[in-house]
């Protein structure tokens, strides 16, 4: 039935294939350029990866990091320039060709088949077959278990992807990429969706791979990760290659300067704000089997941080408050009045805004342009006149101004959001909710995949909103962000609130203690 598919022998035994260390570089990118309509995404760039090292790629949103990786992984064809693998020039017409040449990639956006199982996702196109040529599901299950054992991952190989949390999906992606036993492993922001525990776990895996002589390309916006895991790093800016350095001999500020070409002010511009009355009050909220008896208040001008491990129910609480999945019991009060929010529309009408965690699944309208994406939450209020006509002119002006303020990197507002870099998509989604002028703003991982410069800008923006009396709930897996921005930190563990700490008492240790119990 499938004669054309390429047969491969797959080894997962943990034994690594012998690697050729004679070349100085496993992977070389020479003078590669790539343009899209209206954008020169890569302008004559280079990159050299040594075997057995972790090489970080740094750069602002839209600098061209992902584009370069997609060229290496055979997804985009460069306009000019070449890619050399172990000193030999290769052409990578398809992702398959790249895989077979020994290049594996973890994509910035999760690319899994949600309706299929973990094992099926990992071994797709490489399924083990039995003597009759049929897929051997039990062997596939075993191969997955072996792989997971090797990587110390605890997931059921037969679980359907759609039932997993985003962080666990990311672990599946990582395991899948490792399973190729490739010479070059590209990781495009693998830690943007996972918490510290999983990050530590990932770093363990990376160190193991490095020892085996694999060249690892690691894209991240987190400075601390650079210093922790990377041996070398290369900086890109506006599609241009800026330089490569050993990460041991540079400072954080120097890197930032290389990335943005200017200095970035303080990281967490937290300002003391006079707190107002209680805007949002949640009492004994329960969603059977997900979270239990959650209570808290947020005041006008206050930023309440939500900390906890992945799966602790932080996002679920937010979804319940916003009416995405209404709670089974408990009450929600806004300005002292009990409200019954049955769907997100009710919530928006009550002045709430909710930036969701997964920009691809629940955020972007991928087939629509930036303008349509940014205005989608305000189409039933200020910008619509009595006859039901949209005041597009007014909307365009406000949206464009917001995009400027958020520094969305795009040729124009009619660009399809799908074509924006990940960080820029995130900025558009933040803009969508700012456009609603909310009184209560819930941000779930607001700076996921956002570069340092823009991160500081978003933090400033949130601070400004707090100044204006907006109540902010900020869910973040980045502990420094939660600690840096919040007036109080609410910690969850297994669906329960284990503590609410004041800014003065909240630090890494106290929060982790409550989060892990």
């Amino acid at each position, binding site marked *: *039935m*499938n004669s*054309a*598919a390429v047969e491969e022998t797959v080894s997962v035994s943990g034994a690594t294939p012998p690697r050729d260390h004679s070349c100085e570089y496993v992977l070389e990118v020479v003078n590669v350029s790539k343009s899209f309509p209206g954008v020169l995404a890569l302008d004559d760039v280079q990159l050299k990866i040594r075997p057995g090292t972790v090489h970080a790629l740094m750069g602002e949103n839209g600098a061209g990091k992902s584009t370069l990786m997609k060229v290496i*992984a055979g*997804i985009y064809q460069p306009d000019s320039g070449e890619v050399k693998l172990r000193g030999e020039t290769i052409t990578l017409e*398809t*992702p*398959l060709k790249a*895989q*077979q040449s020994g290049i594996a*990639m973890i*994509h910035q956006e999760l*690319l*899994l*088949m*949600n*309706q*299929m199982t973990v094992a*099926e*996702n990992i071994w*797709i*196109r490489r*399924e083990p077959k039995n003597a009759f*040529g*049929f*897929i051997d*599901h039990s062997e596939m299950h075993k191969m997955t278990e072996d792989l997971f054992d090797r990587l110390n991952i*605890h*997931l*059921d190989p*037969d*679980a359907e992807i*759609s*039932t*997993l*949390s985003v*962080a*666990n999906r990311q672990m599946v992606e990582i395991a899948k990429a490792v399973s190729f036993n490739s010479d070059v492993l590209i990781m495009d922001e693998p830690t943007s969706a996972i918490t510290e*525990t999983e990050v530590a776990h990932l770093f363990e895996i990376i160190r193991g791979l490095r020892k085996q002589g694999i060249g690892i390309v690691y894209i991240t916006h987190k400075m601390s990760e650079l210093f922790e895991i990377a041996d070398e790093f290369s900086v890109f800016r506006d599609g241009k290659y800026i330089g490569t350095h050993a990460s041991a001999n540079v400072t954080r500020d120097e890197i930032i300067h290389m990335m943005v070409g200017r200095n970035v002010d303080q990281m967490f511009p937290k300002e003391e704000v006079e707190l107002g009355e209680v805007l949002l009050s949640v009492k004994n909220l329960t969603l*059977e*089997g*997900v979270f239990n008896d959650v209570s808290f208040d947020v005041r006008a001008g206050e930023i309440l941080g939500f900390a906890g*491990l*992945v*799966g*602790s*129910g932080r996002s679920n609480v937010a979804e319940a408050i916003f009416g995405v*999945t209404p709670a089974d019991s408990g009450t929600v009060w806004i300005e002292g009045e009990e409200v019954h929010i049955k769907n997100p529309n009710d919530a928006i009408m009550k002045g709430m805004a909710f930036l969701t965690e997964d920009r691809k699944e629940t955020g972007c309208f991928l087939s629509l342009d930036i303008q349509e994406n940014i205005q989608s939450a305000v189409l039933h209020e200020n910008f619509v006149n009595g006859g039901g006509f949209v005041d597009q002119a007014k909307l365009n002006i406000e949206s464009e101004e917001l995009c400027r303020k958020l520094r969305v990197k795009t040729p124009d507002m009619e660009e399809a959001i799908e074509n924006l870099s990940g960080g820029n998509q995130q900025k558009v989604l933040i803009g969508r909710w700012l456009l609603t002028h909310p009184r209560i703003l819930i941000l779930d991982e607001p700076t996921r995949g956002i570069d340092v410069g823009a991160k500081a800008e978003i933090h400033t923006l949130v601070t400004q909103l707090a100044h204006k009396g907006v109540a902010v709930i900020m869910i973040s897996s980045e502990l420094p962000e939660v600690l840096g921005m919040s007036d109080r930190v609410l910690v969850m*563990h*297994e*669906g329960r609130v284990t503590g609410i700490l004041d800014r003065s008492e909240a630090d890494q240790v106290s929060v982790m203690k409550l989060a*892990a119990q």
Partner: protein
Amino acid sequence: MSTVDNTMKEANDGQEVCKKKRIPAEVSILLVLVGISIMFEILGWIFVGQSFLMNMSRLQIIILQVSVIGIIAIGVTMIIITGGIDLSSGSVVAMSAMIAATFAQSSSWPKVISPSLTDLPFVIPLAVGLAVGAAAGFVNGWLVTKTRIPPFIATLGMMVSARGVARWYTDGSPVSGFTNEFAMLGNALDRWMPVVIFIVVAIIFHVVMRYTRFGKFTYAIGANPQAARVSGINIDRHLIKVYAIAGLLVGLAAMVAIARIKTAQAGMGLMYELDAIAAAVIGGVSLSGGRGRIAGTVIGALILGVMLSGFTFLRIDAYYQDIIKGAIIVTAVIIDQQRQNKRKKTT
């Protein structure tokens, strides 16, 4: 809900917790089938004064009717799993039937269309019918992948054109007088032949979809084409294969149908595409792609067949039959939707 618990616990203490197996969708559909049958049985005793189920010839007719639609529905199921749709199957039935029928005539028949093609061994018309169906499917797949027009439009075009070819081919006159050998395709084994073919096809494709790489690719493309591409799957080539195989099955269904009723007409197969899609949807195949099983579709087709026969048995007016059938299809989709929502909720 239990899945959330699982992931939570796994994330926290690294322990694999009990794996609760979800009840497969087919079981609930099977229950619906049993329920409907029992309902007709009871109504039968009340209104008609006889048993609905204890009637061998009725059961045979039901299964025979189901066979043709069922064979088509199996191909359609694969297409829907890739995230596509096929509106052309009814018309392609007519086109394959008309063309193949002219190769199946016996010289003893007074109105032979092409005298040079009479008394051929049955494999020749059979091969012609399969080839015509597969060719139509290939064109569908080619249009969908190479021109990137949506499957709905591509197969809508095929639906209109294939019907036109069927009419044009013999200027609208029906073709009958098949060789005995060919007629066996629909009547051998004491007239159970179509059922046997249906069962064999169902088993083959059940295995293909579950235990071969071909099947996995089909699900993967429907679940996330982007991910499938990045996994190294040649999406275009695979989709063309799926559409062509679905077309082949339509051709097979056409051969079984004309062999059984011993005549081919340009107007045959009308609305078959909708019945086939309905069978798949009732059987739990998700129209958004990536989810569904052959077994579900087979049961879905049986449900349609039982309903049709039951309505006739209860002497319900044909108009009402259609109204009720429409309502049942919509209900099936609603149930499917709710099943999906529930799944989302646990994420």
